[in-house]
């Protein structure tokens, strides 16, 4: 392609559109259902229990330490399926491009989509590309829907959570939000936070044999761990107690939070799994998680309690107790 930037004509349906699709999309994603560019992908499933999710990605900046909007879109969609107890199978890829977007940047993003999809074992089965005028979108937006097959054995419901259950996290908290913030504010030093954008499906599939003891899973994206745990406890007849000393944080993220006065409980991760499980299976799950790079820093961070119903309580680093609240208002816009 001999243009350096996206032009309106790349979305116009004519020759340039065709070129963009064949040269940039089909070369990367054309080996599967997308090959003949059908209007709708034909997919075959063994199971009738499917999970279906959709998400939009508007992160700014488009590229950040640890990833870019492309792998973020794949991981975000894959992770929504994984925490529902599903094996991710197919994704859609909707691209909204701003006139003037450098083609080199688009290629890097598409390369990341391709790599991330291969890593997650998912196929980009359908897609769409639109170009809007300069100023009408901020470089590049992605929408992605995902289809997964429910894994047998998982019965994930809040009403299965019992006092005494354990709360596990698979990795450091807040790395994605901190990386975006650092990138936006131009902090570059010896330990800049790096986004944890990565898939969690292996963490789920690898413990499927213990699914009977797994009550509920979420990925703590927007609003962070505090929001996820509050969503689990609000209106329920149990509470949660977590311990600040057990919470895993990366050094760069922790340093940034100290400097900026951020409460990392409110900051997003994009490659972390929060699980509530029976005490009997907790150790085995942690042990398996720690064999994978994405679960290396996994920790049990707390327990489900019979008292403090509906609340999340934190035992602080110095041993005081307090309520963990959801953040109000906008903390960090456009992190995903």
């Amino acid at each position: 392609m001999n243009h350096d930037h996206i032009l309106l004509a790349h979305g116009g349906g004519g020759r340039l559109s065709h070129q963009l699709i064949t040269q940039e999309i089909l070369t990367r994603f054309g080996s599967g259902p997308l090959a003949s560019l059908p209007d709708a992908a034909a997919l075959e499933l063994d199971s009738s229990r499917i999970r279906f999710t959709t998400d939009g990605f508007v992160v700014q900046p488009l590229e950040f330490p640890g990833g870019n909007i492309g792998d973020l879109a794949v991981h975000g969609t894959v992770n929504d399926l994984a925490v529902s107890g599903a094996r991710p199978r197919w994704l859609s890829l909707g691209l909204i491009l701003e006139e003037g977007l450098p083609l080199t940047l688009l290629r890097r993003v598409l390369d990341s989509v391709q790599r991330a999809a291969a890593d997650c074992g998912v196929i980009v089965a359908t897609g769409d590309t639109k170009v809007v005028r300069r100023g009408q979108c901020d470089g590049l937006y992605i929408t992605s829907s995902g289809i997964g097959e429910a894994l047998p054995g998982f019965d994930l419901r809040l009403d299965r959570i019992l006092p005494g259950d354990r709360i596990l996290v698979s990795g450091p908290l807040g790395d994605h939000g901190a990386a975006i913030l650092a990138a936006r504010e131009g902090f570059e030093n010896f330990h800049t936070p790096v986004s944890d954008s990565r898939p969690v499906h292996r963490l789920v599939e690898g413990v499927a044999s213990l699914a009977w003891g797994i009550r509920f899973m979420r990925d703590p994206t927007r609003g962070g761990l505090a929001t996820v745990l509050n969503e689990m406890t609000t209106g329920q007849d149990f509470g949660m107690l977590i311990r600040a000393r057990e919470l895993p944080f990366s050094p760069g993220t922790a340093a940034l939070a100290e400097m900026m006065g951020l409460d990392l409980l409110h900051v997003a991760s994009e490659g972390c799994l929060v699980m509530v499980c029976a005490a009997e299976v907790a150790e085995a799950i942690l042990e398996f998680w720690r064999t994978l790079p994405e679960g290396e820093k996994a920790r049990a961070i707390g327990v489900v309690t019979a008292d403090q119903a509906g609340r999340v309580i934190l035992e602080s680093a110095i041993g005081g107790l307090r309520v963990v609240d959801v953040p109000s208002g906008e903390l960090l816009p456009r992190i995903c």
Partner: protein
Amino acid sequence: MNYIDGFRDPDAAARYRVTLAQLGQELADQGGRACFMEVCGSHTMAIARFAIRDFLPPAVTLVSGPGCPVCVTDPGYIDAAIELAGQGKIIVTFGDMMRVPGSRSTLAKSRAAGGWIESCYSPVTALELARAHPEREIVFLAIGFETTVAPVLAMLDTARRSALPNLTLLVAFKLVPPVLAALIADPELKIDGFLCPAHVSAVIGANAYRPFAENHGVACVVAGFEPLDILYGVEGLLRQKIAGRATVDNQYNRVVRPEGNPVAQRLMDHYLMPAAVSWRGLGVIPASGLVLRPEFAQFDAEQRHQLTLQPGRPNPHCLCGEVLKGKIRPAQCALFGVACHPDHPLGPCMVSSEGSCAAEYRFASGVTP
């Protein structure tokens, strides 16, 4: 263990718990109670984050003071910022200002309606935007206490030296000692001691608190922001209360000098002069703010656009002033939880998640694990 962890040692904290319990008992045996105020928002945040209140004996209450710059920003100031956004100026603000209510609207709503409003963590963002958009005027919302003033002035200094014509400040700097003086002037004040912020004190000097102790009998302890610093500070206040003393106790003398930081003071003096300003919930307090000197009018959004910051109409039923003085509990305010709640705050004590009213709203039934 790194440097910071040394100030967060749970065993040391447990020892403070015991000491404070003993002192609290001693006070209760005298038939006394103590109410201390942490003056500054940074202390408030640390107290919340590390659950310091959980270490206090029943005879001791710690209330949050007027030291959160966002919370005490007058509604009229927000109105002016919204007006400037409506005129097509780019507004740059610390993010937590977005949902603070003006008389009629918020910056968040103004942005949703098409205003260009950028939230930032550092004033430098305003400089970058001013360079990137020479055709637009960038208005930086310059709020804050003594500690925020210097970085904002440093930014302004750069703008001046690089002759950037399109950057202005909407100034609402505030000063800690005058508002404490205003609180203290109330004969019914129920505050026994101030936990004074180390960083503000590093600028203004610990001497600034002496009149409170000497003329009004309010104990003052200058403390750092690590949890053990704060526990130590509370212990110091409690000891003064039990002994019936009121002095200025500078526990942070590794940074805070009696006379403060002369370099920062000179920079402030060069650009700014004291003025009477309006505080949300407290009204106009003489010499409690800093405004740009007339010779820098070109950088003053207010003067350049002939705005007059009308003191906004605070809700006449908001009793924040009384809450801040420790005279009533938030729940005694008729608006509490009805017209005023965290998603629709009316007074400063509800704006910040750690303000007294917001804290009481959320933790209404107390933590009793």
